[in-house]
């Protein structure tokens, strides 16, 4: 199944796929017209502020096949393979003519360390092509003290963007950007509903393209195309396959989704940052801009990195219920350890409710390097049919 002909024949989907496949294209065009591009490392850099500053947010991602010369030089063993590959591109100059600045959010501990290392490289080895940096020091523990602190942090980032863009960011600039983003999120939720319907109309591989492309293109255009795909997809063929919910590591590419979907499954939901979590909470325009941004980024569903086990158990149970999944697959890359502490409790909670689970941990990167994986996956999905 994967990406079906009905999707490939859609003009709107084709355009989304183009930006998903050519991830720097829109940013380059923006830059050629004199605009400035802000690379985003981590899933919690507020798009609202970057767009309000008249700049282009571009998500940093890993190349699957690049040699990790710089990463192996600077990073210890325990940095996971995705962040290693992202770090490589920042330090080896791949992004030199694509991004002007780099905004980093503390979405995981490994990204915090990456920020500290990049800051030190800029200080000690200024010849390296690491762009100017800013760090958004979110605190995700849900207490008022930290919520207030996050408002301070957001205001600091706003000031940095004003320096980078050379212009003041007004509240109405932020409101305008938020309106675009909320519209895009609403469109993505429409896609999500089609995907989670009793008979899904959109596959996981297709959804991953639709969601992921928003990280590399103009968001107003993305929203328009996504609404269009949502409208067309209502007439796409229903998918009859075992419904799989995916948790664990983020998937920047559809490799694993395609593997699941060519073996009798369909990915109806996920809780990683390149999937459902990307669009699930709106900017609340009834709050002041700073508070609305804190509300959106601090209080959306728990990431696997910044949450207690009990929070993750509950969040996964709820997400699995909402997607009516038959089974949950845990997929965790090598050295991406924190989700492993959630797994036994999550597994128990799911299996107590009759939902099958399968764990793939310590996975090599990229997916294709795990040559044994497809056989094991197929056996699991076949077992669901029995």
């Amino acid at each position, binding site marked *: 199944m994967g990406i079906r002909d009905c999707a490939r024949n859609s003009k709107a989907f084709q355009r989304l796929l183009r930006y998903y496949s050519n991830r720097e294209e829109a940013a380059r065009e923006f830059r050629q017209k004199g605009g400035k591009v802000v690379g985003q490392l981590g899933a919690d850099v507020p798009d609202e502020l970057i767009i309000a500053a008249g700049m282009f947010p571009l998500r940093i991602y890993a190349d699957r096949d690049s040699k990790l010369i710089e990463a192996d*030089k*600077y*990073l*210890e*063993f*325990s*940095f996971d393979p995705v962040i290693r590959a992202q770090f490589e591109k920042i330090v080896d100059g791949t992004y030199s003519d694509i991004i002007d600045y780099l905004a980093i959010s*503390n979405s*995981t*501990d*490994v990204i*915090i*360390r990456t*920020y*500290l*290392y990049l800051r*030190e490289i800029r*200080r*000690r080895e200024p010849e390296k092509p690491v762009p100017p940096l800013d*760090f958004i*020091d979110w*605190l995700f*523990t849900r*207490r008022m*003290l*930290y919520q207030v*602190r996050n408002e*301070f942090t957001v205001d600091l980032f706003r000031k940095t963007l004003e320096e980078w863009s050379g212009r003041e960011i007004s509240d109405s600039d932020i409101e305008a950007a938020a309106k675009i983003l909320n519209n895009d999120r609403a469109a993505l939720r429409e896609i999500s509903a089609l995907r989670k319907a009793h008979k899904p109309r959109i596959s996981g591989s297709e959804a991953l393209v639709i969601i992921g492309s928003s990280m590399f293109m103009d968001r107003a255009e993305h929203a328009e195309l996504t609404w269009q795909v949502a409208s067309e997809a209502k007439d796409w063929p229903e998918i009859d396959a075992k419904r799989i919910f995916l948790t664990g590591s983020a998937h920047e590419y559809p490799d694993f989704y395609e593997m699941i979907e060519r073996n009798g499954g369909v990915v109806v939901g996920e809780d990683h940052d390149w999937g459902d979590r990307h669009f699930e909470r709106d900017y609340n325009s009834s709050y002041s801009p700073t508070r609305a941004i804190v509300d959106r980024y601090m209080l959306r569903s728990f990431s696997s*990195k*910044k*949450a*207690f*086990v*009990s929070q993750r158990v509950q969040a996964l149970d709820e997400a699995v219920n909402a997607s009516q999944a038959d089974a949950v697959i845990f997929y965790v890359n090598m*050295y991406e*350890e*924190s989700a*492993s*502490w*959630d*797994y*036994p*409790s999550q*597994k*128990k909670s799911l299996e107590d409710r009759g939902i099958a689970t399968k764990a793939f*941990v310590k996975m090599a990167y990229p997916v294709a390097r795990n040559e044994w994986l497809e056989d094991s996956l197929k056996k699991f999905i076949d077992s669901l049919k029995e």
Partner: protein
Amino acid sequence: MPNDIKRANEPNRARKSLQATAVASAYQKEWFAGLRARVEAGEDFGYLNADVPMEILRAMDIPFVVNQWWAAICAAKRMTPKYYSLLNAAGYRDDLCSYCATAFAESLDPDDKISGPWGGLPSPTIAITRLTCDCQSKIFELFAKNHGADLYVMENTQPRKVPPNWWELSEDRWEELYDKDRLDLAVEDLKALISYLENKTGKMFDINKLIEVMNLINEQESWYKKTRDLIARTSPAPVTVVDTINAVMQAQWQRGTRWAVEHAKSLYEEIRSFVDAGRSAVPNEKIRLMWLGRGLWHDFAFYQNFEDKYGAAFVWSMYLAMGADAYIRYNVEADPLRALAARYIGMEDFLHMPPWNANWFLKEARHNNIDGVVYMVPENCMQAVEGSYFIKKTFEDAGIPVLLFKADPVDSRKWNRETMTGLVEDFIETRIIMGGKK
């Protein structure tokens, strides 16, 4: 019989020369028995990660144990292979977060009261950690749940301001050392912790008691400063890390007590007496080594493997030196909570954040006439990730060779003493002796 076989396969125990080490070992066992009695009598009992500001609990007279200290005890008692197998049996991976997860693993042991160190860990009623790595909150929550304890967490922020020589500012110029907003937040965090503890335990937090605790700590750490300086300027060194790590770490977790001050003083005086008597740990000392990383709790004798053959003595570890440079906060009376905030928010950064750690390690290497650095980096612990590239480069740019290797401080299953000994011997021969350092 199985026990006999186990003993035969175990590595040799380290030779320790200091009375202060033996005293600390005896005291901690006695203290732990007293703590157990208080817990059994119904008092609240806190279990804290090492970076939690324990001074608050000390001032409130709430008994507590520090996670890393207890992990070290479990490792020294060679319990960790059993505990990690329990993790595995419960569906957890047994190769993660060994330092932080030992106590959680122990909590899975139904026989803990019989086979655990010193009768096992009594069940805490409060578990407190700081969120200095993604796994911390998860491990502590699991641990708290198994013991039926409350979980309390404190956040961690990253410095924007990074003045290079933190040790020159930390004692009394912390407003210059840290971003003001970080200190402000940390003070509020302390107040929230105090409020929680007052409600939980029914005990009042007395600010005057905190001043007393902070001043006792200043006194204790000042003795460590004198001890560090004495060892630094004495060659051959009077003692090695085999003595100082245990003597200091055991007392460090008792900081804020009169016993800890007296112990730190006695440690200095004993080492001073060695120096005065011309007694040295490695009489043929030719090479002074620095140990970077956590203590190798399951094989302390390893540190002594190179003394006879090469005259190589491990004279430096962070445990004594951090006591000397990182803990003292003078003039606490003006604002004791802010002084405490200025201690606890920096501790992780001093050790794990470039450039603060690298600059300090180099300063210490020079101060201690170090010839080579042996640097242990755990394979899968993000909390211990600290910019090893920058540290190594800082040393090597200064002409001090570094051996960096992967190992685990508490998981003996990942350790092969023979291989590691070969690695260090090769380093001594090729990088220090043939490299012209000696």
